[in-house]
């Protein structure tokens, strides 16, 4: 199983958070199907040359969030039951953190709240142009 | 656990053995010429032996401490085995001076590897010294055998004479190199780069100390020199084939010599171990 994740250890973002986000994204996009097996902690640590406990930490949090399940001796898998819930939650997480980052960025430029709202409105109109809410998944 | 120690002593041994064999070969060639030119009559052969022995011993002890092995000028006088043992003792002592820097070598950048093994420090040093001492005894035996080989090769075995005190002389010249080993170990155990120089100068120092005994000097100074000489192996290593060690003013018998040399060896090694335990990397 190829390592489909990449991390950048040299940013200020903790590696386990990067991993969590990537696994959630993969589940949301269907790259990782329900029931699919994840690389072992050791394998992923070796593949990415990162600390094994960092990988273990990411897996623990993913398990707590209901995205994956781990059975002793067999490894970690994308959850079968509630996979859609997990995917929805994952999508929501990814999207909201992206929006969050965008708003934070806008604010850092000193933009007013009304101005930011205007930008968002423009973006919504561009991407959701005619098909309204059809593309909407989750929530 | 002895592997590295063994390799080190083996390397020393090989160099020494090659040098000794080269000297032996020169002696053989030289005596061969002597035989050809003089003929087969025994006095002349004895003369050749004398020449050969003088050649062999020439650059060794006689220059170092001024005694040397005195071979009779009479061609027919027997060649004492004791002299041969004395020569072997001297060779072994030089060898011991060389390998006596073992702990110093470890201290010179290798403690990190030497001390991070499942072995106690003293155990490690004791092992190293045991291998060194085995090497010293081996070079002693090698030298004796090589000399006997040369003597047999030139057909002079009939002149070998077993003097009555040969056992005691053997004991003396077995502990003689060990005394040098102890001194060098004790002097160098806690120095880093200069161990070789200290080992080399220890011979020079010993020779000077011995020579000072003969100088006229105020009684106090002389007493000091005399006392210092009690730990001088050269004092006890009388290379004259005789047993009495009447070295200048200090009169020392063979048993005392053996005891003193042993004591020097033991004290030197103990001093080295004490320093070794106190070292820091």
């Amino acid at each position, binding site marked *: 199983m190829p390592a489909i994740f990449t991390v950048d*250890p*040299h*940013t*200020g*973002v*903790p*590696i*386990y*958070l990067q991993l969590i986000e990537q696994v959630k994204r993969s589940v949301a996009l269907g790259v990782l199907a329900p029931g699919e097996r994840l690389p072992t*902690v*050791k394998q992923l*640590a*070796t593949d990415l*040359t*990162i*600390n*094994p*406990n*960092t990988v273990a*930490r990411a897996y623990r949090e993913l398990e707590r969030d209901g995205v994956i399940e781990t059975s002793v001796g067999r490894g970690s898998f994308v959850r079968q039951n509630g996979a859609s819930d997990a995917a929805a939650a994952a999508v929501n997480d990814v999207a909201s953190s992206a929006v969050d980052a965008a708003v*934070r*960025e806008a*604010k*850092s*430029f*000193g933009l007013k709240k009304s101005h930011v709202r205007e930008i968002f409105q423009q973006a919504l109109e561009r991407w959701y142009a005619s098909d309204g809410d059809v593309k909407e998944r989750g929530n | *656990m*002895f*592997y*590295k120690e063994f*390799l*080190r002593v083996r*390397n020393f041994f090989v160099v020494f053995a090659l040098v000794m064999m080269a000297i032996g070969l020169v002696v053989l060639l030289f005596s061969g010429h002597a035989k050809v030119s003089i003929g087969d009559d025994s006095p002349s052969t004895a003369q050749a032996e004398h020449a050969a022995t003088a050649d062999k011993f020439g650059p060794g002890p006689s220059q170092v401490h001024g005694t040397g092995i005195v071979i009779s000028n009479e061609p027919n006088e027997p060649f004492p085995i004791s002299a041969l043992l004395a020569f072997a003792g001297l060779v072994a002592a030089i060898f011991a001076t060389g390998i006596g820097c073992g702990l110093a070598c470890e201290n010179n*950048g*290798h*403690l*990190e*590897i*030497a*001390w*991070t*093994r*499942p*072995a*106690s*420090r003293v*155990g490690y040093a004791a092992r190293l010294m045991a291998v060194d001492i085995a090497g010293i005894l081996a070079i002693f035996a090698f030298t004796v055998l090589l000399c006997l080989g040369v003597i047999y090769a030139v057909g002079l075995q009939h002149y070998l004479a077993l003097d009555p005190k040969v056992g005691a002389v053997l004991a003396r010249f077995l502990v003689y190199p060990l005394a040098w080993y102890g001194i060098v170990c004790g002097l160098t155990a806690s120095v880093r780069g200069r161990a070789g120089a200290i080992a080399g100068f220890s011979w020079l120092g010993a020779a000077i100390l011995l020579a000072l005994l003969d100088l006229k000097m105020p009684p106090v100074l002389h007493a000091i020199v005399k006392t210092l000489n009690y730990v001088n192996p050269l004092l006890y290593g009388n290379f004259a084939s005789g047993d009495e060690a009447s070295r200048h003013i200090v009169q020392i018998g063979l048993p005392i010599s053996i005891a003193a040399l042993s004591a020097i060896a033991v004290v030197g090694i103990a001093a080295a171990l004490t320093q070794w335990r106190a070292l*820091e*990397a």
Partner: protein
Amino acid sequence: MAGHPEAPAIEIAALTKRYGATTAVDDVSIAIPEGTIFGLLGTNGAGKTTTFKCAMGLARPSAGSVRFHGQALQPKMFESMSYMPERPALYDWMTGMQHLEAARRTFAQYDRARARELADLFALDLRKRAGKLSKGQQSALGLVLAFSIRPQVLVLDEPSSGLDPLHQRHVLDLMIDAAAGGATVVFSSHQIGQVERAAERVAILHRGKLVLEGVVEDLKAQEKIVEATFETDAPTIAGLEANASVRHLMRQGRLLRAYIRGTGDGVVAAIQAAAPTSVRILDQNLEDIFLVAVGGN
């Protein structure tokens, strides 16, 4: 290893080492749990090597102690513990093969096949005398020796010095592999990126003192920079210097930077009150954290 399994694999307690008037290590306490990769960072002369030497019993601490699973160092612990010094303490006159042979005869756990595999990994010519090897190849031989006994504890002082980038990566892989197998790995490095990648925990030494210690990921999550820009020169904000979460303040023209630990809510509020044109919170990578800790820049 014997001892108390619950006790830290390595526990350095109030370690101090003085050489004459200089204090090389000053009251350093670090506990390293079993199975962790622990990175030790510091500028030259910060006391990293001295700390290692004291831990390995090569230097006597002036004060304090080092314990392994609750026990004082004993020679037999080296059956499953490897130390690789900063300068590989190899014997110049011995070949690589002879060094391995010496290890085979010394360590019961020596794994010949593993040693060969590692020598190949580092493209090491075992027939060469150690004295003839390049600095990097000497490091490689040191690493082969250290890893060939499959140790439970590894203490590596600058393990990748002199190695090319590919072999440096191999060193990290070996450490990660060892830790994944349950071994405890402690290493020092000048390359912060290596520590950032491989280490779970990090300690930063500066002039003999421990200035920062913790889980790398937590440090990254906690240590932030609040950066504010102002219309005119950045003002002095009352109470900011005294705020416990502010580690360092930098004021340069219209720019104000507060290096904070924790959420820093109070800090952001205090800065906001001074009417900046913008405020943002920046992440810090380990290098930023290191530079702040040692007071540089």
